């Protein structure tokens, strides 16, 4: 962990065209303060990797509605009508990935693997253009690792070292994206002195920065 940072330091890391992973599942556990900070800058043409398109007013959906996203890689966009409209109008590219495959592709990058072999998507349009490999008589799709320049982590309980635990179902993709990106920034819902080691999900060497609380803690 390099340190606790304020919003402006985070904003200085942003640039047009970067690839950003955003945690959260239907905006549960999404890094809302970091998303707001992105929206305060003029950054655009982002490739966003997130479980879903969020909602128009919550989660990664806010970046989509603001026209900042050039390409979205997600498993589901049904809760964000703007995402569907931008796709139909050709204003945003959307790559739909089965949720388990999305999680595992991100995990593969963070774990240093060259990809995963999954039965999910076999004999569907998801398999088009992909390598099929038989293992012990069963066919699997080769799905490649997925990484990003920046991971925006939400739903976390952070300690002063930058260790992260997660609250309730806010864990979802957050621990996975922390490991799959060049820079991982956490937007904690709570900060404590020191987390019980038994409780830590994301150890601090995997977290680059933690956004300070509003009062500058």
């Amino acid at each position, binding site marked *: 962990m390099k340190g606790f940072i304020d919003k402006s330091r985070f904003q200085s890391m942003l640039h047009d065209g970067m690839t950003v992973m955003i945690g959260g*599942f239907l905006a549960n556990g999404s890094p809302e303060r970091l998303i707001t900070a992105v929206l305060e800058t003029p950054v655009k043409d982002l490739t966003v990797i997130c479980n879903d398109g969020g909602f128009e007013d919550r989660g990664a959906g806010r970046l989509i509605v603001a026209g900042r996203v050039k390409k979205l890689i*997600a*498993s589901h966009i049904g809760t964000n009508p703007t995402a569907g409209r931008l796709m139909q109008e050709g204003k945003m590219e959307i790559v739909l990935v089965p*949720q*388990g495959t999305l999680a595992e592709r991100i995990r593969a990058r963070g774990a240093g693997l060259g990809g995963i072999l999954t039965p*999910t998507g076999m*004999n569907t349009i998801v398999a088009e253009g992909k390598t099929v490999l038989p293992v012990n008589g069963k066919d699997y799709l080769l799905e490649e690792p997925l990484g990003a320049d920046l991971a925006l982590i939400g739903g976390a309980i952070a300690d002063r070292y930058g260790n992260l635990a997660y*609250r309730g*179902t806010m864990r979802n993709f957050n621990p*996975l994206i922390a490991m799959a990106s060049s820079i991982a920034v956490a937007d904690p819902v709570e900060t404590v002195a020191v987390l019980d080691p038994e409780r830590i999900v994301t150890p601090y060497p995997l977290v680059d920065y933690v956004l300070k609380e509003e009062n500058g803690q």
Partner: protein
Amino acid sequence: MMDEKAIIAQRIALELQDGDLVNLGIGIPTIVADYLDPAKHVVFQSENGIIGLGPLAEGPSDLVNAGGVGATIVEGGAFFDSAMSFSIIRGGHVDVTVLGALEVDSEGSLASWIIPGKKVPGMGGAMDLVVGAKKVIVAMTHTNKGIPKILSRCRLPLTAYREVNLIVTEMAVIEVHPDGLHLTEVHPDYTVEQVVQATEAPLHVDRVVPMKGVAC
């Protein structure tokens, strides 16, 4: 008369067995839990990272179900990340998944995630769930305003090929076998002939009984 969603959910609840780990999809599948015999101990898995999903929460919650709605966790339950969640799902540890569909066919393939050029919500976790769960139950209305949804071959892009085990509609219960679809139960409001008429796929009709759990 019960509404069609309630008929479907009530019938599917009878399929869940004591000790099953079950994933319920959005829509009709979600209300299956409301019809479960309280004497049965069924554990619900939710793909956003819960084993032991409980009833909906009142007020704001840090815990949501796979529809993003505030929920609760029962005693003994656990939270985990999405990779663990889909390892549980894909790895064959979920006994039953119940999900909706736009089309199901005589081979047990289903389509549920895209109507090209019209509606593209995405597959979410459905592709993994139907590939990984031991038993796949489709919960859906028998037709789309009279247009058959149970087809010889799906026309929409597939969610998965040959993974469905059971189809439950407001009219009927249909089992998927290697030789095709077997009509096993018909709701008392309908005749076998009406079900056959509302179904494009050929149906084996040699052992039909009234729909279980429905008062005649």
